[in-house]
């Protein structure tokens, strides 16, 4: 034992007291770094607050490491380095989100009004202000609705199969391919419908074609989330019902599904939010239209993501403004779906779960 003690005299001699930076040191350092970042940035002529922020972050990371190393020793310094890096990572991630939302709201609200929401682009000179996204909103709602009509029943039933019945090789294969399907790029789903529905079967571009591609993207999401929710339903409930002589299918319909319905609804809404923003398959299959087409089964339609892309491509100030306004509408739609879905999840959470 004495050999070990001798090897490490420094530790033995030192007491529990360690030189430590005072608790306010990091905060003071933040202030100093921000001031330095802004100062140096201005001196170098960086007009951009983001670059100055990066500079300040860099100053902060280096200074807290150096200060730690001088006062507290290398182990604490590394700890401080890690802490400051992790905080900087967090700030780095928040910056683009705030910027994106700020830009969208700030520039979108210039043209977003009742007129924009209730008029199409029919007959509007694209370089002039005016026109709206009504046709695109209609298109998005119809395509997403149709996609949900196809994907939700298949997704639900597949999840029921996997949780309530599936044990064999077929179930394993389905589970595996659901995972694979989650990873399909949206453009590939579009290309599939293109080759199958339009090139080989000879149908024309339509909202329905787009909806089918969206359904392919939606199915695996619905299966996954429904599966999770069904697994949360305790087996005792199923057994209690089966023991009363209720057939399995009625047990599933009357006991299992109602118990999990809150979570399933949430999953479906999140899936809808996810595909409502998909633009790649729409570009291939719906073809875009400037006028209102209420019939998703015939003729070209538009959709919000497509409309944003189209207006961006036109490349003038008026069309950019329309693109931002449509982006604002789309984000609002997606965010509201998200919020409502999470609200339902919290409100209807299975009592026994978690």
């Amino acid at each position, binding site marked *: 034992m004495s050999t070990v003690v001798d090897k490490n005299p420094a530790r033995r001699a030192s007491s529990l007291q360690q030189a430590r930076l005072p608790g306010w040191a990091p905060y003071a350092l933040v202030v100093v770094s921000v001031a330095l970042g802004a100062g140096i940035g201005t001196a170098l002529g960086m007009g951009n607050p*983001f*670059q100055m922020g990066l500079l300040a972050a860099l100053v902060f990371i280096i200074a807290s490491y150096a200060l730690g190393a001088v006062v507290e020793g290398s182990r604490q310094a590394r*700890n401080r380095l*890690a*802490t400051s890096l*992790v*905080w*900087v*990572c*967090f700030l780095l*991630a928040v910056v683009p*989100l705030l*910027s*994106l939302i700020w*830009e*969208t709201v700030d520039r979108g609200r210039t043209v977003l009004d009742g007129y924009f929401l209730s008029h199409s682009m029919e007959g509007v000179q694209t370089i002039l202000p005016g026109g709206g996204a009504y046709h695109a909103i209609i298109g998005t709602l119809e395509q997403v609705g149709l996609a949900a009509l196809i994907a939700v029943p*298949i*997704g639900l039933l*597949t999840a029921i199969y*996997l949780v*309530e019945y599936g*044990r*064999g*090789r*077929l*179930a394993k294969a389905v589970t595996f*391919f659901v995972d694979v*399907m989650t*990873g*399909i*790029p*949206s*453009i*590939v789903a579009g*290309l*599939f419908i*293109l*080759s199958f529905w339009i*090139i080989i079967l000879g149908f024309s571009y339509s909202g329905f074609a787009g909806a089918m591609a969206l359904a*392919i993207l939606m*199915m695996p999401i619905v299966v996954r989330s429904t599966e999770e929710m069904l697994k949360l339903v305790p*087996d005792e409930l*199923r057994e209690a019902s*089966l*023991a009363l002589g209720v*057939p*399995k299918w009625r047990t599933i319909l009357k006991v299992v599904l109602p118990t999990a319905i809150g979570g399933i609804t949430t999953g479906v809404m999140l899936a809808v939010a*996810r595909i409502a*923003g998909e*633009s*790649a398959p729409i*570009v*291939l299959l719906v073809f875009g239209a400037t006028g209102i087409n209420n019939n998703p089964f015939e003729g070209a339609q538009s959709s919000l993501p497509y409309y*944003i*892309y189209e207006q*961006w491509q036109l490349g003038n100030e008026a069309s950019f403004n329309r693109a931002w306004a449509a*982006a604002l509408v*789309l*984000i609002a739609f*997606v965010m509201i779906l998200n919020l409502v879905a999470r609200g339902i999840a919290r409100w209807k959470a299975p009592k026994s779960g978690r």
Partner: protein
Amino acid sequence: MKTDIEPTSSAAESPSKVRTRSTGRAGDKIFLGLSRGSGIALLVIMAAIAAFLTYRAAIAISKDEANFLTTFEWNTGSSPMRFGIAVLAYGTVVSSIIAMLIAVPIAVGIALFISHYAPRRLAAPVAYVIDLLAAVPSIVYGLWGALFLVPHLTGLYTWFDDYLGWTGILSYQGGAARSLFTVGILLAIMILPIVTSVSREVFRQVPKMHEEAALALGATRWEVIRMAVLPFGRSGIISASMLGLGRALGETMAVATVLSPNFLIETSLLDPGGGTFAQNIASRFKEAGNDGRDALIASGLVLFVITLLVNGAARMIIARRKEYSGTAA
């Protein structure tokens, strides 16, 4: 393994045998048929995607006068057609790698922030904000990237050019910053949420007792993370990165809006040019004729196969990890 269908619980077995003779029998059969049919339908769709894409791709490649894999050209308007995916493969891989290099460290940092560093009152809102980042549609990222990010990057790129221009890959000739590097930055922002949330989940599963073991040995917070958290979460971080990579490879509209494409491989990553599989399909689709569409489908098939491999690898790592931690715990 012997049969496809077994009751979910053994306790359900005995009542179900009695029940088969009762009135529920027909209903059960129909219901099972429906749900199994849906599962099979899903498999059929997957098979159909592979089959139809391969079929059209084969037609296109048979008409291709040039080498499909190595040609720096995309000329489908003329007859005979000459097109190849070399530029697209390069652009897709390079932009995705840039995205990974930026996103993975930051995402791991944020995941650690949420799981180990943030004050408790901050952790949940931060996780929520990151999830919101995932909900923003890709076309909106594209719009923001093209109209906000691109103009704001010219300063940074000029700076790169001044100090690192001699490397060749970071030289910059000026003009709009609509390059593969910009695409990489945008993709990094877009895949940040998925990499973060999967890593966060893994870090949260690190058994408390391993962290306490490290703490009790006199480890600082960072040393706890290095001793107990990161080794435990390593495979999880890898699979999270692969899932992110899968997203980055297939991203279409954000790339199509931000990139100023050409069919060359530029030495500099900062100068505009290049292209990716998905972007090329979206950008050329409107002008493509029948043969042109098939050529685009052929390139889409390559993208499909690549993403399948990447996602498959990620899933395998996750599955193996589950087995491992199942036996260890």
